[in-house]
């Protein structure tokens, strides 16, 4: 695994991704292209050819401009976040299992990183803006003991951000007026220029996330 040179440019360099990451990415692309109706064959092609063109397509296929509101009510755009490495995760606060696992793993990975964690900004974007207002997000992310930037917005703004990250989400109504949200559960690593670089699952152990980030940052 060679993760040291990725910050030099995703588009031009061989992909440093692990085979497992490729599976994750193929799955992400499958989900994303299913939304866009573009066809899943591209993802399968990437899985077979993990280097070269894969890096180009992946680097530009995930991420993009957004304009959202943070947990303190301030407007945040993608350009405001450039200059930091980002760990972007989409989820929702009424999620009892996958989301706390992912955010906690991110928080523990940052602890593991030590001083280098200053360069890394975790970003939690809700796919349930109906319930996840700025105050709700503020209480939620504060509990994880990491400087997580939590973002919400109107339905259109969330839909745009999710589409750019190839994130699928769908409300699932339940008895009594409650609902849960189906959603893509992937931690995206974006470089300081806002380019997609790597990904983790929400269940990847914190020490693995930290080790990978250390190589990317180095």
């Amino acid at each position, binding site marked *: 695994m060679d993760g040291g040179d990725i910050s030099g440019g995703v588009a031009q360099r061989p992909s440093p991704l692990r085979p497992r990451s490729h599976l*994750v990415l193929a799955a992400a692309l499958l989900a994303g292209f299913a939304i866009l109706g573009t066809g899943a064959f591209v993802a399968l092609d990437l899985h077979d050819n993990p280097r070269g063109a894969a890096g180009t397509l992946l680097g530009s296929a995930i991420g993009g401009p957004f304009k959202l509101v943070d947990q303190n009510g301030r407007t945040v755009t993608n350009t405001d976040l450039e200059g930091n490495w980002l760990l972007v995760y989409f989820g929702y*606060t009424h999620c*009892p*299992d*996958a989301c706390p696992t992912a955010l906690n793993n991110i928080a523990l990975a940052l602890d593991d990183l030590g001083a280098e964690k200053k360069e890394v900004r975790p970003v939690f974007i809700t796919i349930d803006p109906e319930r996840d207002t700025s105050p709700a997000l*503020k209480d*939620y992310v504060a509990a994880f003991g990491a400087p997580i930037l939590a973002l919400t917005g109107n339905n259109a703004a969330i839909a745009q951000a999710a589409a750019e990250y190839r994130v699928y989400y769908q409300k699932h109504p339940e008895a009594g007026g409650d609902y849960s949200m189906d959603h893509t*559960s992937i931690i995206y690593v974006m470089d300081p220029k806002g380019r997609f670089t790597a990904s983790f699952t929400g269940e990847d152990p914190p020490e693995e996330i930290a080790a990978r980030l250390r190589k990317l940052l180095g």
Partner: protein
Amino acid sequence: MRAIRIMVLAVGLALMVGSASAQTGPLAVNDAWARATPGKSTTGAAYVTIESPAADRLVAASTPVAQKAELHTMSMSGMVMKMRPIADVDLPAGQKVILAPGGMHIMLIGLKKPLTAGQSFPLTLTFAKAGTRTVEVAVEKIGAEGPAPAAAH
């Protein structure tokens, strides 16, 4: 006389059947735990390990700390997380069934206050055959992956 003899036989048989099932031990619920809930989140999840000597089903749950407790399963398909209510949890005879993060959980909906690490709360489980069991659920850290070692068996 004959009727009495049959009754005695029947009672004897009933006692034998009763003692036979008693020998295999009662249904056991262990390692009841939950994750602390972040902020003012009103949803949480509780996990238990159940072992039943006879085939049974977990059919319902309730707790005074939440408006509702539902049986849920969480699954990942193509990196998409889906959570669904399930009618029951199948308990094959003599097998440990473990509810854990990433799989089945008892979803706590409408928590009256956040679950705080170090505290505990009662949870009543209803089984199709074994009746009800009330266990004390230990609240662990937010990202805990299992019960604290002291509570584990």
